């Protein structure tokens, strides 16, 4: 994609803001070019590219907020959007909690550069080649399905206090689900990176094939508590539930978070440390949020002790805190701050060590369609898929039918025994854009995971 660049995106915003008929105003622009190629039965069935620009203009009149969204960057349309937002604000009512638009401030740290020029130039033929490489690595008797995704974004924010920021980002993603033609069994693997050369199609295929080859002659696991190994994708799913239920200032304020009334207290085991760190070089993020505030590293849980949530400007004001740069698009995320670049501290345990530490338990590759029946406890329920195995005496011995897991994340992490090295992963929901949470996350071995049911064989 040809980037429009800082000048082209910010100039019309500055012009439109110059004569805005409001007390304050800001504009956030998000341009996204998404190339998504999906394959099944080792053949591409959907190959789509969309190029869209989303503009969100806020005008504030006497603490009343009007918002207009459009997808035009035409200067006349931007001025009209701000004028319409001001009119909507005048018809609205003052919000005493309005925190004002962001003031300019320097970055607190050197932000990561989440943009790779080569990735922005990947074309349809290159995506098809990556898929062909996956399919070629799948042996006879198995078939592959999955997705290649290349995404290039540009974000720009400007406001009437002089904030003017711009950043491009890139994301490359490849997933493979390998299924057996002869028996009920499947295996899954994926790579996720800011750079297209961070994807290894043959490696992805090999990992998925290895899982699929093991996933035969399934047996059912009785409900109960088991020791377990959670691979990175499974841990990312647990962290998602923590993020959406308990890591925002708003959720703490409204009493919905596991942190409410417990900041400074031990909430889980001391082997669990979690940060939101958009500046970590392993994750993918622009260096500022949709309000133009620089994104900061936030320690959420330190060795089992709750340290505090992330904030946008409104939740920070309500809680007597400072925005941490975690405001997010309100059409996609709940207000009050979004922890979308989670970093869980890992360890050095190899896969063999993790599995070898379990006498009798279960290995979980990933989850499907998780939810939370008890948000305050960060409880997650969900079924496993594409690689659930019985571990006996430190070795994988049987394939298991998918199981339903239901447990508080805090209870799960209280039982961490070993941690492996981190890798970048996303939960099932985030992997197709339902919210976006990047997790730099380790695999873990835990002493107790609660299994509440089994799917049929």
């Amino acid at each position: 994609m040809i980037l429009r660049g800082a000048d082209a995106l910010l100039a019309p915003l500055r012009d439109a803001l110059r004569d805005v008929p409001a007390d304050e105003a800001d504009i956030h622009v998000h341009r996204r070019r998404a190339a998504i190629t999906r394959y099944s039965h080792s053949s591409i069935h959907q190959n789509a590219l969309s190029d869209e620009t989303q503009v969100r203009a806020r005008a504030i009149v006497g603490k009343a907020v009007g918002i207009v969204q459009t997808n035009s960057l035409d200067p006349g349309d931007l001025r009209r959007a701000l004028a319409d937002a001001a009119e909507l604000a005048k018809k609205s009512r003052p919000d005493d909690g309005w925190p004002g638009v962001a003031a300019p401030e320097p970055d607190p740290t050197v932000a990561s550069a989440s943009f790779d020029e080569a990735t922005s130039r990947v074309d349809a033929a290159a995506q098809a080649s990556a898929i062909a490489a996956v399919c070629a690595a799948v042996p006879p008797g198995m078939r592959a399905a999955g997705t290649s995704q290349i995404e290039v974004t540009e974000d720009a924010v400007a406001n009437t206090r002089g904030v003017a920021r711009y950043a491009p980002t890139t994301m490359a993603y490849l997933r493979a689900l390998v299924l057996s033609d002869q028996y009920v069994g499947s295996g899954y693997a994926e790579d996720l990176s800011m750079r297209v050369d961070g994807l290894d199609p043959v490696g992805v295929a090999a990992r998925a094939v290895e899982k699929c080859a093991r996933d035969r002659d399934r047996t059912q696991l009785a409900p109960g508590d088991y020791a377990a190994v959670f691979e990175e994708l499974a841990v990312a799913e647990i962290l998602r539930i923590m993020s959406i239920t308990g890591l925002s200032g708003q959720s703490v304020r409204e009493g919905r978070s596991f942190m409410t009334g417990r900041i400074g207290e031990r909430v889980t085991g001391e082997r669990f440390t979690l940060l939101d760190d958009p500046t970590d070089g392993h994750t993918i993020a622009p260096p500022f949020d949709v309000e133009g505030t620089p994104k900061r590293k936030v320690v959420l849980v330190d060795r089992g002790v709750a340290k505090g949530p992330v904030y946008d400007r409104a939740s920070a004001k309500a809680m007597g805190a400072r925005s941490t740069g975690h405001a997010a698009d309100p059409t996609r995320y709940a207000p009050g701050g979004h922890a979308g670049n989670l970093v869980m501290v890992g360890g050095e345990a190899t896969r063999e060590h993790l599995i070898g530490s379990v006498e009798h338990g279960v290995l979980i590759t990933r989850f499907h369609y998780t939810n939370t029946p008890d948000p305050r406890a960060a409880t997650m329920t969900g079924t496993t898929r594409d690689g659930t195995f019985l571990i006996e005496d430190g070795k994988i011995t049987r394939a298991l039918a998918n199981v339903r897991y239901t447990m508080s994340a805090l209870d799960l992490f209280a039982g961490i025994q070993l941690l492996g090295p981190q890798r970048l992963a996303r939960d099932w929901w985030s992997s197709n854009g339902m919210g976006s949470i990047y997790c730099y996350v380790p695999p873990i071995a835990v002493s107790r995971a609660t299994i509440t049911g089994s799917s049929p064989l």
Partner: protein
Amino acid sequence: MADALADLVHLAAARGATYADARSVERDHESVGMRDGEVEAVTRTADRGVAFRVIANGAWGFAATDRTGEGPLRGLLDEAFRRAAASASTRTKPVTLAPVPPQRGEYRTTLARDPFGVPMNERIALLRAADAELRGPNAKTRRASVAAYRTRKRLVTSEGTDVSQEIVESGAGVAVTAAKGGARPAQRYDSRLTRQAGWEFIEELDLVGRAARYRQDAEAMLDAPLATARPTTLVFAPEFLALLVHESCGHPTEADRVLEYEVAFAGTTFMWPKDRGTLRYGSEHVSMTADATVPGGMGTFGWDDDGVPAMRTKLVDKGTFVGYLTSRETAGALGIPVAIGSARAEGWQHFPIVRMVNVSLDPGTTPYPELLAGVENGLLLDAPASYSLDDKRQNFHFSTQSARVIRSGALEGYVRGVAFQSLTPDFWGRCDGVADDWELHGFLSCAKGEPLQLMRVGHGAAHARFRDVPIEVRA
């Protein structure tokens, strides 16, 4: 725009495409949100763009843009062909579309009062009135909202279809969270208060009365005793069943799941072609219908995004699985006629995929009081809270916002902590009665596809009774 769409399609045919369609979409949305009695924000959204699809060398290519000048539109054409060529490099079988005659015409939502024309003061006054009813001694957070949606779209295909549609939807919501002491907070909120209709639907909702009921439910749940884990008779309100139908019948009858187009993300199904006409999905009381013609349905339209006219078909007939939701492509691949056109795209940015239309549990003939009278000891579940399903839509877990005790056919107090997990055919097999009080619900955001597409769908249901369902209880 009409000429530009026709030009794109003609140029594609001239370049050798065996099929092409161009679709323009304009979406407008206005909403007012209130939190704890204060207007949070008034939002207006506009979104416009063009989508273009071709089948060339037997494979799909798709490109979409919000820049509609001559240069970008010509770029669409080139990109769609590049993507088709890339797809063709891996395909072993060409895409085949089930035949549908060319369509021409217009479709517009029937509405009494345009929701975009309702004065802002009137909308805010309604929210204030609802908010007043949400207030209570333990009501910690209160939310209320109204919204209006309008979609204008036009589809032109290389087969001669040229159809235009204008769809208007109205929606509202109220929500309350009650908390007391260290007790677990209780939430009560609407799930599905949307309709393809004008402001008259908002007036029919009785938002103020609903707010009072929700606050009462939430307060009562705070003090309610824990339920007892055991198999029991469950009666579900239509709002709850609408979601159960959606998750456990709508999704597994989507034909693209059968073809494994969704296997790596949304999953597959347990309802395979060999099972049609024989698989016991539920009891004889359970029939389910897909119908894109239901007046007011969020899944109602003139034509789907393949240009297939609105139709109606059975998915489950007296407990037996009989039909699928299909697009022209999936019907062609499965070798079946298009019994219902279900190819839908959220916006111009999206490739049409198989989605639900209005998928409903057919009503029974028993009056609701009579259904309730048949319960000696059980629970009435009003609305879902958390829900989670496996990749085949076979193993599910639901919890509830509120549960009321039924004793000797009468409703008594509340109990809390109720959830249940089940397997789809086992659950629907326990249904021994469906009432005649069928009502329609609308969902705004059924999530599926890559990139994610949030689709409007409709679901009708009546109260229904299920015997001996094991429930689990969480403190």
